[in-house]
């Protein structure tokens, strides 16, 4: 009974439908003959129009009506889907999105903008460019109207729906030639339930709309309304049959039919007196006629539609809309529970009671499962975000006059909703960049012996506990010399520095690196690559760029599956405890005198014949206290690189609820967050990629390390 809620549903539904519309339009470009797509397109706009009408959003109805007409002509092959028409339709879609999202915007400027769009849309058919409702006065043909018989369920008002709203909408579809309110069922004031609906309506509607369209007006109230429709120019028999079916009796409704001219007095009289004779003499069994009535005009099309309807309902039932906020609260609570359960386990294990220990173990297993399940709830496929790029690529390609094909793989790869939302902007930026700078203009491509159509790929897949998203193009690749020259100009690198290609490519992520000269209307405005990197790092992810001269550029974004809770591996150095994400840990080995090379300049370990660079956490974080006799090495793998972290003790697995580090420590390299242990102590989560960079750099870590690391460490410990 809450209208706001209904409106919210309408908004959500419209968003989905508009997204569908965009997707279908883009698909249609590839397969212009697909009738199913045409129908789906028409349906989506039609539903938007219908729902908007329900909520009295007249400006939306007026605008969508014209678009709908055009789509109708399209699916009937009266017009052809040209590139211009697709453009216009896409723009109209955007306009509808605006109208729907911001109803307050129904002002002059929007109106003008809308009218202009419609004019472009209907360029081939100028008289259709203005929103207009079909207007024809009745009077010529007494059975030219659709007869619609409505009996509403008593609960319809409680569901926040006003029967008058539907009639109001029918009025938009055509001309209401007659409306009769049937209030026979209305009890006296003392007996009625004021929130029940007791009304029925007999309506004659003159319209060009078809049966489906009229039926769809009542889609919203499906199940709460008995709807009977008799098409124009039906047989006398059909009207008489309807008379019999209506609960108010033939005489009562007959008079209404008479008044609206559907029946003549003679016809009505005849039916009332010959009722019984008629049935036996007509030769058509009553049941059969009934079947005909409900299935006209085309039984096949009708049943197909109903099937679709059922499918849609089925689909709707499989999902439950939940406020994201509620999920967040749940995840937070689960996080607290994980910490509490760690504390329970700890206490149980410190005691002697086996039973307690067993129960604690059983509980932690369950907690772990609950944790996984609740995190699963927030997982959404990245497909939608990828789909959105389709449109961007198309628009950019048009603007730059390039031919670009977007290939998407792994659209159903799932990751945390928050991550999906936040990755959208950086991804868009990378895609725009690739279209603009990555892929060369047509002439250049031909000169380079490539196909004129450039290819842009978006790929997503899992890799050792992380999600990889790749944006790659088959363009010219990064211009090494130009980047180097620019970086030198900006003082980002010394002119005589000895840099590998990779080092140079990474310069594009530097804050001072501007692409000012390369600015076009597509990219170069708004955020730079440094912001892309910062956004990705804020998600505890990394981005790297690979480029091959003449063959293309590939951006590889690596993101954690979730931002909230991970499986961690605990280890300790002195009094400090550190957590490494478990999926990065490859193995643990003991640090023996034989295997290690203690040369200060190059600390490494011979691991079964392979060189493993070592990073001594004790030295790196300047942990005080004596080095124990035995030390261990945690072999971690990240993005194909391995290093060994030297720690004192290995403490085993730990469910880690990630707590962000204070702003103060945000610049500290090597730490990505903190967590609370069962004992209530704080453990630091190691930023393995960051540590790896330090370990791989040629300069000894001790010198490079900033004093703030020590400060952070001290602060957290004490």
């Amino acid at each position, binding site marked *: *009974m809450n209208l706001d809620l209904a409106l919210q549903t309408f908004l959500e539904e419209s968003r989905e439908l508009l997204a569908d519309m965009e997707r279908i339009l883009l698909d249609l470009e590839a397969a212009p003959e697909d009738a199913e797509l045409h129908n789906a397109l028409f349906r989506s706009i039609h539903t938007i129009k219908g729902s908007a009408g329900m909520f009295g959003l007249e400006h939306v109805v007026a605008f969508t009506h014209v678009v709908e007409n055009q789509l109708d002509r399209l699916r009937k092959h009266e017009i052809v889907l040209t590139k211009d028409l697709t453009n216009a339709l896409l723009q109209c879609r955007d306009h509808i999105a605006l109208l729907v999202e911001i109803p307050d915007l129904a002002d002059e400027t929007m109106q003008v903008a809308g009218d202009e769009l419609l004019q472009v849309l209907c360029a081939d058919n100028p008289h259709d460019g203005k929103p207009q409702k079909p207007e024809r006065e009745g009077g010529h043909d007494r059975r030219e109207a659709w007869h619609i018989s409505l009996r509403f369920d008593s609960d319809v*008002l*409680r569901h926040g729906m*006003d*029967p*008058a*709203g539907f*009639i*109001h909408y029918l*009025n938009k579809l055509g001309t*209401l030639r*007659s*409306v*009769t*309110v049937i*209030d026979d069922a*209305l009890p*006296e*004031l*003392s007996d*009625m339930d*004021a*929130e029940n*609906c*007791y*009304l029925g*309506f007999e309506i004659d509607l003159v319209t060009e709309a078809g049966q489906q369209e009229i039926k769809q007006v009542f889609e919203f109230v499906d199940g709460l309304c008995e709807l009977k429709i008799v098409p124009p120019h039906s047989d006398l028999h059909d009207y008489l049959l309807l008379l019999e079916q209506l609960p108010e009796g033939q005489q009562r409704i007959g008079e209404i039919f008479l008044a609206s001219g559907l029946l003549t007095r003679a016809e009505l009289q005849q039916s009332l007196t010959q009722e019984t004779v008629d049935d036996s003499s007509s030769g058509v069994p009553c049941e059969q006629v009934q079947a005909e009535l409900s299935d006209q005009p085309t039984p096949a099309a009708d049943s197909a539609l109903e099937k679709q309807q059922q499918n849609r309902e089925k689909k709707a039932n499989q999902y439950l809309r939940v406020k994201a906020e509620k999920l967040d609260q749940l995840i937070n609570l689960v996080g607290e529970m994980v910490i509490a359960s760690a504390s329970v386990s700890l206490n149980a294990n410190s005691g002697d009671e086996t039973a307690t220990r067993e129960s604690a173990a059983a509980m932690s297993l369950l907690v772990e499962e609950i944790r996984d399940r609740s995190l699963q709830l927030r997982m959404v496929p990245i497909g939608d975000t990828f789909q959105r790029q389709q449109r961007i690529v198309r628009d950019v390609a048009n603007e730059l006059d390039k031919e670009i094909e977007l290939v998407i793989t792994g659209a159903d790869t799932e990751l945390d909703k928050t991550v999906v939302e936040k990755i959208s902007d950086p991804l868009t930026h990378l895609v725009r960049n690739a279209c603009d700078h990555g892929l060369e203009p047509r002439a250049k491509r031909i000169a380079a012996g490539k196909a004129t159509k450039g290819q842009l790929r978006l790929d997503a897949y899992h890799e050792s506990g992380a999600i990889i998203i790749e944006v790659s193009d088959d363009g010219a690749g990064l211009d090494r010399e130009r980047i180097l020259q620019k970086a030198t100009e900006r003082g980002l690198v010394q002119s005589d520095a000895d840099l590998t290609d990779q080092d140079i490519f990474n310069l594009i992520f530097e804050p001072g690196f501007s692409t000012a000269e390369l600015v076009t209307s597509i990219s170069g405005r708004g955020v730079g690559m440094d912001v892309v990197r910062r956004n990705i790092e804020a998600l505890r992810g990394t981005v790297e760029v690979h480029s091959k001269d003449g063959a293309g550029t590939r951006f590889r974004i690596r993101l954690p599956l979730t931002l909230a809770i991970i499986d961690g591996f605990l280890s300790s150095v002195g009094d400090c405890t550190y957590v490494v994400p478990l999926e990065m840990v490859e193995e643990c080995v003991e640090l023996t005198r034989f295997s290690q090379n203690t040369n200060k300049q190059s600390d490494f370990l011979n691991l079964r014949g392979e060189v493993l660079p070592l990073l001594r956490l004790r030295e790196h974080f300047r942990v005080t206290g004596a080095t124990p006799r035995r030390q261990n090495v945690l072999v971690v793998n990240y993005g194909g690189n391995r290093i060994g972290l030297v720690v004192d003790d290995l403490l085993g697995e730990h469910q880690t609820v990630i707590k962000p580090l204070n702003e103060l420590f945000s610049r500290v390299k090597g730490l990505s967050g903190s967590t609370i242990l069962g004992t209530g102590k704080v453990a630091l989560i190691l930023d393995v990629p960051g540590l790896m960079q330090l370990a791989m750099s040629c300069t000894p870590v001790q010198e490079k390390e900033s004093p703030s690391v020590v400060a952070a460490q001290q602060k957290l410990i004490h």
Partner: protein
Amino acid sequence: MERFDFNAANGCLTINGELTVYEAEPARLYFLQHCTGGALRTVDLSGVTEIDCAGLQLLLNVVRLPEPARLVSASAEVSALFSLLQMDHLLDESGGLTA
């Protein structure tokens, strides 16, 4: 301004504000209280800002009383609904109160 105001002197019931499913039950109770025995002569609808079918049902009931009350001074909202449903004849356009 009172939501409902019944003037016993001239039998006029004035309704202010919305007359929708949300207010239908209180409205019905108020009607019941004052409609009995022909006390209700006119219903002044000039202050009705919104009306739906729940409100309509109440008004239909009022005009169906053994001694029907007249619906007068319909606001634009009320007029719009009655004209959509082609029930304009139920509205008393002469307005004003009878003596």
